């Protein structure tokens, strides 16, 4: 074996350990980067031909850089992220709804209802009292405003959710395009033998962001790219290209492809939560307010329509609440009739004789009667409102529990991922010492070879 070959071995070792230390340095530098996947230097023994008696000399080379990850954990994280996106979005929006239905304070629609019935009760006792009439108008106006304001707020919230759907679709399209672009770069760099670990991390982060918005399935292809499919099995991202979604009216469809809307197949992720809120949950709450308003207006007006005025003359068809326009929300349209507002004396309080207060008493008694349609039957107005608040509270409570559970699952999976792919400084420091030692030893080998050559040179001299 030639002494000079020792120098070659030493050179290979020095370069390999230097590369390994650089990789360790990258790991240490990214210790706080959640998207980073730790890398490991792959050192392999390399044989080189030698003219000496042994014929073969073994050196070392940095043959590659492994990216340490577990694809099953990554897939589980994608699922959990989708579920987390759904829960968090729903929880955020329902948290705003809960404020509208917070009846734990002294004020609230429940109290407004009680004041409304009480005002009719007071009018029944003093049918000709102007104070009682004005108090009733005030209570009725407060009640109508309370129902209308809540419905209006829900409508605004629903409009905001609708805008969020459009924004989310745009973000999905952007992320899908990013994944397609990264796919393209990964494939081309891989083919030229370059390192793509950073790009793989970026793609994993983009997929994670995408999964938060939409339920997806990703499949790795042999060339290094991933194909991304929606929950319904439609391809969203191919090896180089992506398809874009568009929000047309209330439907989510693939751009330029007329077909069946995807809405029903997007049951999770942020987009799934937004669609469910926009098309199911919020209209459901608004519908309950409409049911309450319709029952109050219809029942009160029905009794109020027949009676006698202050002089005892029969009065027919006088409305207390304005008629509800067909095709519009009853909750938004509910208001005290303009005639009653202009002249409180036109409130019909008596039935057969002026001053008997029977109309007011019968309206006041509606409180104890099942007048509001709820599910398949009728319930009292107060019970309907209590059930509505209970429904909202139940929805909020359920989604909060689901969010907590989803966060716990995601944390556990991220912990598992961290255990596999995360950087441990202790480990890196030990590896650093190991590589440093190898580097120092290689340097010492170089020095020994130099000494040997020098010795030989002295013999020649």
């Amino acid at each position, binding site marked *: 074996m030639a002494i000079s070959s020792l120098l070659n071995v030493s050179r290979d070792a020095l370069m390999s350990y230097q590369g390994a230390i650089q990789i360790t340095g990258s790991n240490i530098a990214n*210790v*706080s980067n959640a998207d980073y996947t730790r890398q490991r230097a792959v050192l392999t023994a390399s044989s080189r031909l030698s003219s000496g008696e042994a014929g073969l000399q073994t050196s070392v080379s940095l043959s590659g850089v492994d990216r340490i990850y577990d694809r099953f954990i990554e897939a589980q994280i994608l699922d959990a992220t989708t579920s987390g996106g759904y829960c968090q979005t729903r929880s955020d929006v329902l948290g705003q709804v*809960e404020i509208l*239905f*917070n*009846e*734990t304070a002294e004020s609230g629609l*429940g*109290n407004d*209802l*009680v004041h409304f*019935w*009480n005002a009719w*009760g007071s009018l*029944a*006792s*003093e*049918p*000709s*009292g102007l104070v009682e009439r004005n108090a009733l108008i005030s209570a009725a106006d407060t009640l109508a405003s309370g129902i209308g304001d809540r419905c209006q707020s829900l409508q605004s919230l629903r409009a905001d959710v609708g805008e969020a759907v459009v924004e989310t679709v745009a973000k999905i399209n952007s992320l899908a395009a990013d994944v397609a672009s990264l796919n393209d770069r990964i494939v081309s760099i891989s083919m030229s033998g370059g390192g793509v670990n950073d790009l793989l991390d970026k793609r994993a982060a983009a997929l994670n962001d995408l999964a938060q918005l939409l339920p997806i399935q990703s499949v790795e292809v042999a060339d290094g790219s991933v194909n991304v499919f929606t929950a319904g099995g439609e391809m969203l991202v191919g090896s180089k290209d992506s398809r874009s979604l568009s929000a047309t009216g209330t439907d989510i469809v693939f751009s330029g492809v007329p077909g069946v809307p995807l809405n029903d197949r997007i049951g999770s992720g942020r987009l799934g939560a937004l669609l469910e809120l926009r098309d199911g949950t919020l209209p459901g709450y608004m519908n309950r307010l409409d049911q309450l308003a319709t029952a109050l207006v219809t029942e009160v007006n029905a009794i109020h329509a027949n009676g006698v005025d*202050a002089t*005892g003359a029969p009065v027919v068809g006088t409305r207390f609440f304005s008629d509800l326009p067909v095709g519009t929300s009853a909750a938004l349209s509910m208001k005290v009739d303009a005639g009653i507002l202009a002249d409180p004396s036109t409130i019909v309080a*008596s039935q*057969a*004789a*002026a*001053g*008997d*207060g*029977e109309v007011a*008493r019968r309206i*006041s*008694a509606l*409180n*104890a009667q099942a007048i509001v349609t709820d599910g398949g039957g009728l319930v*009292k107005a*107060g*019970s309907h*409102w*209590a059930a509505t*608040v*209970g429904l909202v*509270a*139940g929805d*909020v*409570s359920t989604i*909060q529990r689901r969010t907590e559970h989803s966060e716990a699952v995601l*944390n556990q999976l*991220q*912990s598992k991922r*961290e*255990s596999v792919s*995360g*950087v*441990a*400084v*202790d*480990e890196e*420091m*030990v590896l650093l010492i190991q590589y440093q030692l190898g580097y120092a030893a290689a340097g010492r080998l170089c020095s020994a070879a130099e000494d040997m050559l020098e010795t030989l040179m002295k013999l020649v001299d």
Partner: protein
Amino acid sequence: MIMRVTDGMRIQASLAHLERARNGSRGVLEQMGTQQRINRPSDDPAGVERLLEWKTVRGDIARYQDQIRQTSQWLRMTDLALGHAADLIGQAAELAEGNVCSDEANRQNAIRALEAVESELFTLANTRCGERGLFAGSAAGVAPFARDTDAFGNPIVRYDGNDESLVATIGGNATLEYSVSGTEAFVQDGRSLFQVLADLKSALGSGDGAAIGQLRIELNGFRRQTTQVQSISGVRQQRLQSAAAHLSVLDQKLAGLMDDAQNVDLAELAAAFAMQEVALNASYEITARIGDMSILAFLK
């Protein structure tokens, strides 16, 4: 296989512990601040629905109690008026009884006394409670009895009220007719008390002993009728008192239930807060030491 524990895992775990401990403290502090277990509907959905139902029922109870108070006041006034009316009718009957065979001068004195009684009865019959006449039936804003003249120019007392009853709602499905109409109190067999008094005045003026005797019998009948109506009013008063007592017990029970459902046990909360504080301090302690647990400390 030994599980790898990375620095990220330790930091994530510490953050999660801190978050949990802080949330726990926040919840307890909020309850201590408001002294309420339910601060938003989602704290207890079933509880908040029950609370709303109970609140509505208590609102109804308050309304019924208010109605009972007003009705009770009405019945007390009715009772007083009828009692006084019975006394006055008795006085008129005594005047009739004492003057069946009396001389002109005594009869003239009796007529004057009778006029005073009639005037007082007229005032009593028009007694008002608020805007309503006690004996006007369901009519409001009118005096039930008015002085007028008949077709021959004779003075008469006209009834302007009606025979309807006022109704009070004193429970979910419980109502009470509580008013006494002028007809019930002051008309018997189609004859008004005021007509009988007017006839008695005429009989006393003409000295018609037989007529005076007959009218005395009629007045005694009116007194019995008035007393009977007064006793009915008393029965109504008792029913009101019974309803008020029942509602009061129900209201107290509901208040107790609401209190149990809504309000916190401060002692329990103080203990929970102390535990949360310990957990939070422990989390801070551990988080502060994360940096020490590294090989770097030994490589210095």
